[in-house]
């Protein structure tokens, strides 16, 4: 019997508790963070309807919103593949897919910067819709940036050969965080770009 199994049995006998691996607790900790962060995004998304109703400015670049969504969805697949590769001991594959995810993250950032450049003229941060637009995309962008930094750390460790079958929590955790960034955008995209009717808005709209 393995040492961990003995400890599990001892704990169960003494205290009537079930023993969990530290990995399960890592996963639980990350999920608690993700859920708390989801509440934050939910509050911001609901503020969009409170501040500017369901109208959206016709100056929004619909094609760009769709393209940004496509990039994030594709990056979720690459993050998933990096985790799968790491779990099968395919270090080169894990590195490749982490790098593709990082590149997709930068492409997304480029798109957001372009959208902001245009939005500053059409619906500035001081306007009703602009307030929620810049707050939502701004907070989401900080998550993208932190995700890229996290993935860069994981890439460095993967390059040193620190991950393998049965030992790839770093890749898994970073990938899960990246999926959350994508999941948040799944709600932000329709909230900003699709809901309601397109109307002409001035600087105070």
């Amino acid at each position: 019997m393995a040492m961990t199994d003995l400890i599990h049995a001892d704990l169960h006998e003494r205290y009537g508790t079930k023993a969990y691996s530290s990995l399960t607790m890592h996963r639980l900790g990350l999920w608690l963070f993700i859920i708390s962060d989801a509440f934050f995004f939910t509050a911001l998304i609901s503020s969009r309807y409170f501040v500017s109703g369901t109208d959206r400015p016709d100056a929004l670049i619909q094609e760009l919103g769709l393209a940004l969504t496509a990039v994030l969805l594709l990056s979720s697949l690459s993050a998933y593949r990096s985790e799968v590769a790491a779990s099968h001991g395919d270090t080169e594959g894990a590195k490749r897919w982490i790098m593709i995810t990082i590149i997709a993250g930068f492409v997304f950032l480029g798109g957001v910067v372009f959208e902001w450049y245009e939005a500053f003229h059409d619906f500035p941060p001081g306007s009703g819709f602009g307030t929620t637009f810049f707050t939502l995309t701004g907070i989401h962008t900080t998550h993208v940036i932190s995700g890229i930094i996290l993935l860069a750390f994981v890439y460095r460790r993967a390059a040193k050969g620190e991950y393998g079958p049965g030992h790839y929590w770093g890749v898994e955790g970073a990938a899960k965080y990246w999926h959350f960034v994508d999941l948040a955008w799944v709600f932000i995209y329709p909230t900003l770009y699709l809901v309601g009717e397109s109307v002409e808005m001035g600087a105070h709209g």
Partner: protein
Amino acid sequence: MTTDSHANETQRTRNKRGLIVLIALAVLTVVEFFVAIWFEGVLQLTLLGVSAVLKALLIAHYFMHWRQVLDHIPDIAAGDADVVED
């Protein structure tokens, strides 16, 4: 040590599943785009909400593997859990 519920599946099988999920997400995104054009009012809001929730469930289930912790929450919430270092 990482325990993996997909340990018996091949890398190819899991990659294929990821691709199928991505296609489903892409289809729902295109549906959302046209829902915004074709519908308005409460119906539009409802359809967009349903589509977003479906996409979120696909990501949470297939990409984030939420079942890995969901099954343990009752024990952990009840304080019936101890952590053992691997």
